[in-house]
């Protein structure tokens, strides 16, 4: 099968709707198809990867740990928009520490999160061949 540049665009907060969870399920499946996969977190999508999520008070499953597994599937390009964080009173310190191990570099642990500004994110979006949004 051909290899295409896939981008999953995440613009909604988790738990308020099922889009974040069900987007993550597609991302995990996409790993099996050996595609060139990127994720974008912008607007309220940045809340999907905040650290310290605790869902005990709302009786929903906390699926934030699953983002940590993405690196194991070689999904390691998670673009986060700086402007989206700052508008929400957040910084990169509020995000989970998401990493992957580079087999070409003696399995060195490298960050999966790539901080970009709005202009840079637009450039990355423009390069994609398939853009899926939820």
């Amino acid at each position, binding site marked *: 099968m051909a290899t295409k540049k896939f981008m999953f665009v995440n613009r*909604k*907060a*988790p*738990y*308020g*709707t099922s889009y974040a969870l069900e987007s993550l399920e597609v991302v995990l499946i996409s790993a099996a198809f050996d595609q060139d996969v990127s994720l974008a977190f912008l*607007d*309220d999508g940045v*809340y999907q990867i*905040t*650290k*310290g*999520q*605790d*869902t*005990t*008070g*709302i009786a*929903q499953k*906390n699926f*934030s740990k699953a983002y940590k597994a993405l690196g194991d599937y070689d999904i390691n390009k998670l673009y986060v928009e700086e402007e989206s964080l700052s*508008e*929400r*009173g*957040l910084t990169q310190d*509020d995000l989970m520490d998401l990493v992957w191990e580079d087999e070409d570099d003696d399995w060195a642990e490298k960050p999966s999160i790539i901080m970009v500004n709005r202009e840079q994110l637009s450039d990355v979006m423009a390069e994609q061949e398939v853009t899926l949004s939820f």
Partner: protein
Amino acid sequence: MSMLHIVNKSPFEKTTFGSCLNHAKAGDSILMIEDAAVGAIKGSSFSDQLSSALVDKKVYVLGGDLAARGIDQSRMIDGIELVDYAGFVDLTVNNETTQSWL
């Protein structure tokens, strides 16, 4: 008569929260649930607007919804009160009417 305004949408995603603030009256209460909880944080592009509401209205946030989105209560704007579902029930009892901003 006082009214409990319930808002469930992020102020960064929808204009609903702003519309709620524009229509709530002095003495009313505002409860942030679901995605609206993210509006409780200090230092956002929305926090000045919410702080203004605190001058003559009470503002509450459902703690479970705040925690689910990874926001520690220490980050809340001063004056916002944390409630659980029991507190939510009390708010509907203590205000004569409720209006949901959907």
